[in-house]
């Protein structure tokens, strides 16, 4: 329901308002058609798809909860020192596997590192990988899928077959094969791998979306009024076609974070000295019987993070495409 918003300008509304439209003749005798009641009520202001979506989102508790979790995650990813004063890499073997104690609420790992500090610092790797992989996938996928959908023809067929091939590659197996040859411990090989395997998903969606939008009259009209191909694409097709891409990309962000943990767990994702929940889960899994706290904290953090992004994706989808609800 639209919330009551003060009208922009009472005077401006009068000529097209409902009451005035009863009288079809304006002062100079020229007739003007009635504007219609839904045309511009007093409680309406200029709205676009995006401002509509934003209004829906603000009222959605799922969005608020997931948004707060994600804001917090981003905050500690950028600035982990704010809530964890220790060093995630300074470990004391004497305290290995010990439980909770003052100053160390989550206990210690098998190497004697502080679990709390490592869990906090682990957010950085997860968020970095998730955000970078999603951005990369969204940009590459939209560009390729969008171009193929817009121009169609030969290159479109080629691209569609290429995406089919990529869809056939099992992600974990592909990761084991491709990433096992990488020695760097930074996040970039993992991000690169995710973009490589992830773009076809977005590209398919972008292509379909662009093909649908391209058939709209306004694209034809823009062409008839002299718009160039690039202008039609960037200004008329893309802004209308991008909503489904955003929805899928947001949901995918959660799965990329989970995938990073999976690959790190298998030893082909991030590697020590990087701090990652996946690495910690992998280390802790061997001691699950005698020291379950070592597993529970990073695993819990991972689960909450993935859940938060998937919830956010759901909320965004509801807001941008109410028909899918």
């Amino acid at each position, binding site marked *: 329901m639209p919330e009551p918003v003060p009208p922009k300008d009472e005077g401006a*509304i009068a000529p097209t308002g409902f009451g005035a439209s009863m009288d079809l003749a304006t002062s100079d005798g020229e007739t003007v058609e009635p504007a219609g009641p839904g045309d511009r009520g007093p409680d309406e202001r*200029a709205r676009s798809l995006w401002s509509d979506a934003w209004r829906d989102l603000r009222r959605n508790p799922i969005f608020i909860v997931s948004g707060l979790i994600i804001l917090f995650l981003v905050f500690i990813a950028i600035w982990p020192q704010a809530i964890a004063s220790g060093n995630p890499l300074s470990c004391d073997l004497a305290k290995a596997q010990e439980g909770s104690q003052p100053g160390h609420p989550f206990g210690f790992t098998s190497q004697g590192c502080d679990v709390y500090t490592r869990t906090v610092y682990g957010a950085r790797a997860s968020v970095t990988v998730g955000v970078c992989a999603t951005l990369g996938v969204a940009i590459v996928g939209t560009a390729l899928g969008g171009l193929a959908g817009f121009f169609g023809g030969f290159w479109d067929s080629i691209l569609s077959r290429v995406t089919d091939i990529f869809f056939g590659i099992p992600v974990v197996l592909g990761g084991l094969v491709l990433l096992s040859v990488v020695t760097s411990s930074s996040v970039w090989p993992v991000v690169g791998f995710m973009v490589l395997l992830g773009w076809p998903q977005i590209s398919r969606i972008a292509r379909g979306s662009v093909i649908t939008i391209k058939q709209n009259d306004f694209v034809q009209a823009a062409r008839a009024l*002299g718009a160039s191909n690039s202008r039609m694409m960037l200004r008329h097709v893309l802004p*209308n076609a991008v909503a489904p891409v955003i929805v899928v990309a947001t949901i995918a962000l959660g799965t990329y974070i989970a995938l990073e943990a999976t690959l790190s767990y298998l030893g082909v994702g991030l590697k020590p000295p990087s701090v990652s929940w996946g690495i910690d889960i992998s280390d802790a899994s061997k001691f699950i019987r005698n020291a379950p706290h070592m597993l529970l904290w990073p695993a819990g953090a991972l689960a909450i993070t993935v859940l938060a992004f998937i919830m956010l994706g759901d909320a965004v989808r509801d807001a941008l495409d109410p028909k899918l609800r």
Partner: protein
Amino acid sequence: MLLEVRELQVEFHTRDGVAKAVNGVSYSVDAGETLAVLGESGSGKSVTAQAIMGILDVPPGRIAGGEVVFKGRDLLKTKEDERRKIRGADMAMIFQDALSSLNPVLTVGAQLGEMFIVHRGMSRKDARARAVELMERVRIPAAKERVNDYPHQFSGGMRQRIMIAMAMALEPSLIIADEPTTALDVTVQAQVMELLADLQRELNMGLILITHDLGVVADVADKIAVMYAGRIVETAPVHDIYKAPAHPYTRGLLDSIPRLDQKGRDLYAIKGLPPNLTRIPPGCAFNPRCPRAQDICRTDVPPLFEVDENRRSACFFWRETLDDV
């Protein structure tokens, strides 16, 4: 002559074979003149317009022959780059459904302003000012306040005015209006037509009015071209046609207009259906539906006979049709 279409042929390659959508159409429009192109859906009137504008989808469409001479220059032999500069600036098009012809994510001001930015290289601010002027010119109340509204916030008639404003923005010498009032209700139709006619007079433009509404035509057109199955079957000054049609198809169209003095009687309808364009019947395409058809109509394609200086009819029996009032 501002625009001369000579023997234009357009084909569509479909699964069922080659559809000859436009089969040797010739017509011309002079500055300040209004040509109404009349015909049922599928008669090729819109396709002819798209070919003139150069916005035909190729493939599946293909211009198989003919000339489109605009200001002494054959557009079909002009490079796409230059045609794009002509579109919008020197010839523009108005579409049937203004809601779908306007980009839903851009404000009307942005879309109107785009004309000046694309073709005149104006700054965003100047373009915005011109957009308001244009909206005032097409008599949109409170233009200044509404320039930042989105298309869906306007009523149908107002949207069509905005489409007209976009087409008029750069004062082109030719406007093609493809059923500009079909999507509007009757009272608004008259106002929009009047506006179009006023602006045309003011700017001394040539206007091609594509329609299937004979009522709209009578008031504004100077001459009429009636199309059937991709051919012109009759061209004449507007009054001559209403007085006495020289082609049985035109006769049928005129007889199917509901009239007050025939209240209570059944409305006349031309029997049968327009032909499938992939299988146009031999001889005169209208012969299976024609009350006057003779053997010659089933074997020979009638040429355009000269009825008088300004009038042509593609019927072997135009004399008899004329006399049969």
